[in-house]
């Protein structure tokens, strides 16, 4: 069964890196649901959260192919690890004196924020995981959505575990760390771990 998977990649902050990643997804026929990229705690590196559709075998291939790109420093599939994932949406909802109160009730239920007010419209900022944002969007539809933008997922592992790439100091150690990261899935799920 295809499902949504969350992959975190650290890449060198260089021109063309996004094109390399996009080109790889296109060429291998992998289906990107969303890709979010931005700075991280380490200068010189960018952190990508990539949501892909696919079965375990496909996602394992995505990670391995991604890591082959020279500019990709680390890749981790965190689908099966405890994590926090968030998405932000800005939704411009049609709202006038007649129904503004109703709209604001929905805003309150979703603990969303009104970030812009106009006589005929509101911009509402919704923050949460994908399910929450989906639900909010559905509720606002009844008032008329004039425009919407969603950021796509960003995600982080819970607890002290991180997705940070290994330091480069020793090539052998780096290789070991990378191998340990690749295909981080429960025993028996890996396409090659079962008899």
């Amino acid at each position, binding site marked *: 069964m295809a499902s949504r998977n969350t992959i975190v990649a650290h890449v060198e902050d260089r021109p063309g890196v996004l094109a390399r990643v996009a080109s790889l997804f296109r060429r291998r026929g992998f289906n990107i649901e969303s890709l979010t990229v931005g700075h991280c705690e380490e200068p010189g590196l960018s952190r990508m959260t990539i949501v892909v559709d696919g079965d375990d075998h496909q996602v394992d291939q995505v990670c391995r192919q991604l890591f082959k790109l*020279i500019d990709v420093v680390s890749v981790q599939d965190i689908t099966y690890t405890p994590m926090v994932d968030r998405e932000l949406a800005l939704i411009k909802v049609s709202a006038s004196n007649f129904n503004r109160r109703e709209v604001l009730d929905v805003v309150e239920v979703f603990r969303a924020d009104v970030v812009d007010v106009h006589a005929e419209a509101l911009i509402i900022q919704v923050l949460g995981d994908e399910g929450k944002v989906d639900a909010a969007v559905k509720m606002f539809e009844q008032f008329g959505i004039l425009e919407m933008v969603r950021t796509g997922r960003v995600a982080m592992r819970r607890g002290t575990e991180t997705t940070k790439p290994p330091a480069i100091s020793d090539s052998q150690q780096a290789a070991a760390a990378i191998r340990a990261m690749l295909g981080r899935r429960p025993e028996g799920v890996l396409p090659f771990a079962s008899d």
Partner: protein
Amino acid sequence: MRLTGARILMECLRAEGVEVFFGYPGGVVLPLYNTLGEYPDIKHVLVRHEQAAAHAADGYARVAGRTGVCLATSGPGATNLVTGITTAYMDSVPMVVLTGNVARDLIGRDGFQEADITGITLPITKHNYLLMRASEIAPAVKEAFHIASTGRKGPVLVDIPKDVFIEEAEWDGYPQGVSLRGYPIMDVPREEEVDKAAEIINAARKPIIIAGHGVVQSEAQHELVEFAERSDTPVLTTLLGISGMPEDHELSYGFLGMHGHFYANMAADRADVVIGIGMRFDDRAMGRFSDFNPTAKIVHIDIDPAEIGKNFKTHAPVNGDVKETLSRLLPQVELNRHPEWRAEIDQIMDQHPTDYVEEGTELSGPWLIQALAEATQGESTIVTGVGQHQMWAAQYYPYTKQRQWVTSGGLGTMGYEVPAAMGAQFAQDEPIWSICGDGGFQMTSQELQTVADHNLPVRFAIFNNGFLGMVRQWQELFYEHNYHSVDLGQPDFVKLAEAYGIKGVRATTRAEAMQLFRDLESYDGPVVIDFQLEREENVWPMVPAGAALSETIESAEDL
């Protein structure tokens, strides 16, 4: 010391020990050509088409076991390299490709002869660079050679704008090392993976090895033979793995795949353990994936972690360099004997031998390769194009030495045979035999001029049946004999050779061919030989497209 970008580039090539590179000049690389005279130790070979520069660098790399280098100007020069780069990429050949580009201020403005070659080659290079400062050249070239020649090898492109060749930068020697955080060397396999593989191999009753290009690239023939002997495992190769296993060895059972040896395909299909070494379970080798020996356990040794589990479920993946992995695996492999299994394959081999025995006077493809093998004592380096002649050369020549076999396997590039053989000839003195199709030869025959310029002793043996033979074979077998666009007109190849100042000869019978082989022993210049073959000979055996290895057929009657 301050040097221009052009000089820095040449200093880098010198520091890398580059002896020869293949190129074609043009507007934006003029500053570079302006400095070539100062570097006489780095031989520049002027080709007649940029595609040939890439194939020549590829052929040189495969035979020399070193990184090949080619150069082209911007725009059309760069795009002409694309087929050659893709060929090298598909077969993991180490290559550094240098291109010029328009001056920096014209980039992105559709300048004259501008092409976004780094964008174009994204999916066909291991990595590529567009350098915007002369100070970036030395570190980038160092990285390019490092990336091209380590791990799973491949082509790396370095694109340099015209004014960067002219700009000056500080040169304080070639960089000592590289710092590539996203590119750790993964040569050494994990212990637990080696243990698991050894466990499966030791328990095997009908094991088979499939040796791929990785064996040749890692130069692990010695380790492969030792491993096979110790575990008493028959060895098959993939098309590109040919020459990785000495074929005169009793454990050598040919190559498998669409036109592989019958017994090789059967052995792969009946094995209980398949040990893939430096290969990628390609569809042409394995037949229909879903029906490839479903009960076999698969051990897969490969340098590229992305190849593990790509096409098949693998029971014991081992990610590491072939030579490194085999030397770690060897002490764990128990001395074993599989007399019944060997006898089973030997019996298939006896019933379905590959020796061509048909009597006659007409030239047949298999006969010609066998005769060539005899004339050259099986010691020549063979370069081929793509098609029937390629398959016959794979099937009937007895390869024993690593790097003795050069062919475009992954991409299947027609026209490869002429420039690749030319480039390969720069890596060795003994004459190279280029086995050509009459179709492929017409694609790149302009390089005969380059061959003549350097008086290279390449023997271009055109397997001339006047057809695009392999396509014709498919039209005959699978498209009801409906021949279309396969009956090739052609020039008089002997006269063509002579027009280039090259010896041209023709053989139409077996006796003439034998005589020719004898005559050529004492000739050390280039030769074009027009071998006129029977026109509608087919390549057998064959696994029809989409069929399984177990469905290998040996004649049209089996269809």
